[in-house]
């Protein structure tokens, strides 16, 4: 082995190959790190060293430029993919006690008699985020605002744990085939299938379980997202969807998730194609 290396090192191959490779690398480094960055008229580097550091990909924090702030309260919740998983029994118990104040509208076991959302079996993240948003005013509700004012962060986590623990609406499977807007969305209007976020196909943190929610509630929320009356969705993710939906599609999607059968669904299908 060593004899082989000795032969290689003596031969012309060694200096030639190493030399060519090194020359190419050095030329590439020079052009890529010095010549091109300095020739870039759009970028003002303080020095050659600054140019080299940038070209090398030295990580910089984004420059602090003045930003336009919203003139309304925005959501302050930071959603992490696994937050509020694995609640303790104590937390659920505390949540059950706290939930006594919610029964008037949301039902004794999280199943509503009125046109308020059913909370039983809802994702904990969703409950927590909406409570937080009601409290900060990011989501506006004359009814909810006074009720959440005195809730601590832990109270909200407990409530979330309790409602997530309750069984969902029995037989909440909506009737019939979903309308096209629910099953496939409308790609060119940037509407993905509802289930891609809302749990039937895949889950996105913060997206609610929709099946079995009241029709009026669902339709109002979609309308409010579309008009901008509701704007506590992070990055406008739900406003982007609702704005692209037609009135008929909003109706059809709400009917479907509310478990209602009816001719409205098929009409909505037809009109969505003409968009």
């Amino acid at each position: 082995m060593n004899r082989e290396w000795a032969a290689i090192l003596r031969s012309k191959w060694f200096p030639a190959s190493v030399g060519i490779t090194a020359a190419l690398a050095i030329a590439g480094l020079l052009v890529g790190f010095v010549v091109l960055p300095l020739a870039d008229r759009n970028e003002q580097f303080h020095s050659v060293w600054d140019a080299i550091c940038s070209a090398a990909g030295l990580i910089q924090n984004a420059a602090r430029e003045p930003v336009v702030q919203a003139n309304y309260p925005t959501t302050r919740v930071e959603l992490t993919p696994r937050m509020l998983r694995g609640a303790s029994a104590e937390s659920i118990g505390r949540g059950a006690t706290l939930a006594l104040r919610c029964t008037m509208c949301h039902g004794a076991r999280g199943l509503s008699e009125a046109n308020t959302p059913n909370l039983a079996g809802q994702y904990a993240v969703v409950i927590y985020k909406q409570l937080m948003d009601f409290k900060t005013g990011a989501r506006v509700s004359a009814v909810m605002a006074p009720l959440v004012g005195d809730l601590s962060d832990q109270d909200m986590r407990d409530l979330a744990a309790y409602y997530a623990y309750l069984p969902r609406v029995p037989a909440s499977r909506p009737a019939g085939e979903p309308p096209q807007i629910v099953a496939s969305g409308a790609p060119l209007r940037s509407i993905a299938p509802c289930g891609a976020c809302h749990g039937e196909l895949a889950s996105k943190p913060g997206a609610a379980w929709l099946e079995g929610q009241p029709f009026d509630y669902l339709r109002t929320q979609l309308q409010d997202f579309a008009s901008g009356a509701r704007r506590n969705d992070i990055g406008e993710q739900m406003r982007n969807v609702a704005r692209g939906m037609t009135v008929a599609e909003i109706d059809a999607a709400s009917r479907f998730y509310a478990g209602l059968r009816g001719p409205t669904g098929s009409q909505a299908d037809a009109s969505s194609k003409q968009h």
Partner: protein
Amino acid sequence: MILAHFWLAFAGFGAALPLGAWQMYIRSPLHGWISDPEWYYRSVTAHGTTMAYVFPTLVAMGFGYFVAEAALQRPLIGLRWAWLGFALVVIGTVTAIIPVALGLASVLYTFYPPMIGNPFYYIGVVLVVVGSWIWVALMGINMQRWKRDNPGTPVPFPMFATVAGAYLWGWTAVGAALELLFQIIPAALGLSRTIDAGLARVFFSWTLHAIVYFWLMPTYIAYYTILPRAIGGRLYSDAMGRLSFILFLVVAMPIGVHHLFADPEVGSGFKFLHSVFTALVALPTLLTVFTICASVEIAGRLRGGKGVLGWLAALPWRNPVMLGAALSFVMLGFGGAGGLINMSYQLDSTIHNTQWVTGHFHLIFGGAIVIMYFVIAYDLWPHLTGRSLDSLGLMRAQLWTWFVGMIVLTFPWHYVGILGMPRRMAFYDYSDPVIAAQAASVTMSVIGAAILVVSGALFFLVLARGHAAPRTAPPAYRFSVAVRPPRALPAALNGFGLWLGLMIALTLVNYGFPIAHLLATPGTAVPTVNVGALR
């Protein structure tokens, strides 16, 4: 054992091929929108994982073992280890494909962290790679032992080229292995909640480009060592062949960042440096084209061809090896031209990540490379089974249909890619006037895919008929002989020490800083997003 590798490889191929055709059909205007797009992405994951990892790795391994025995003319050293490697590939494949089939790992074969699937998917892929590393080691050991026993004699060219391919893969796979072992698998097992998506992409680019050359290796080895012999010619130049494989070994790997031209995590200087070496990697292919054309010309002239082009007419076109290689060359030419476009930052930005890219690598890999896998199978089968393959007409039909199918599939893809059609979507809205302009092209591709499925079926028919044929005693297997077989070679051309050193040094220069810097900088990791999570 070699036959086992080939059969498993082709079994995977046979399973993944219809998946590809199904995907093509599902997203075409011929089919309505799929009700659960997840099935589409599941299928893409299975198709990609099988075709990109399992199939070519097994072909390379099987062909490598065959070359080691036939070229060195002695039994393989480490047969038990070879079986162990095979077993790891089998276990890995099964481990990986089960979560994919269950929809727990629809992350596509390129992984795409911070999306994280079921850990068994990644563990399975790692097992496949580890199994192939055993093959890499065995190839090296077999060559070293032979050199020790035959001092001063040049290593037979087929073995030299095979070992070059093995070492290339050994080092290439390290990038993805690092990504899997240190980033993705800890996240998939829940040991880590965050991952640096940018760093993962850098690691993957280390593997992503050179893996294509690993797929290419058996094809190039067949060009050099099977084609000239099969058509009654000689290899034009042994030294040039060695040089080509050495160039592949040194420069195929440290150029992967050209896949990240549009990425935010790598500095522009490194992008330029990688594009310089990317240009260099076209050189061995140009050398190969020249050497092979010259070798084929020799055969044509030996068969009585005269004049500037007369030798072309004199070639044995009815010979499947000749036919397959010629079709492969045509596809390599088109694909290579497309590759030069991908290589430049300016041109690449029009087509990056569109259907163009899908068209490009299907033409190169599925076309130029896989058609030579068929040729290799046709050429080796009689020696592996002891039964002759006589269905020459079927073989020609199979090769032609594969060629036509691949052209009909990929040319429209290139075209819609230029129009801006994004890849890997479960459906498109063809009712929109802009997208409607692409509908006819997509339908063409469906026809291409259907032709390919027919061709795949023909391939299995040829092999099945071979297994049913009566036993014969084929003559000893021979590889091509060079016009001037080398009597002695400089040490540098008879081993890989120097070249491996250069390869590693170049990797450190081209990848060292970007990787070290991202590793050392806090704040680059982002939360993982689990796919296939239950409601």
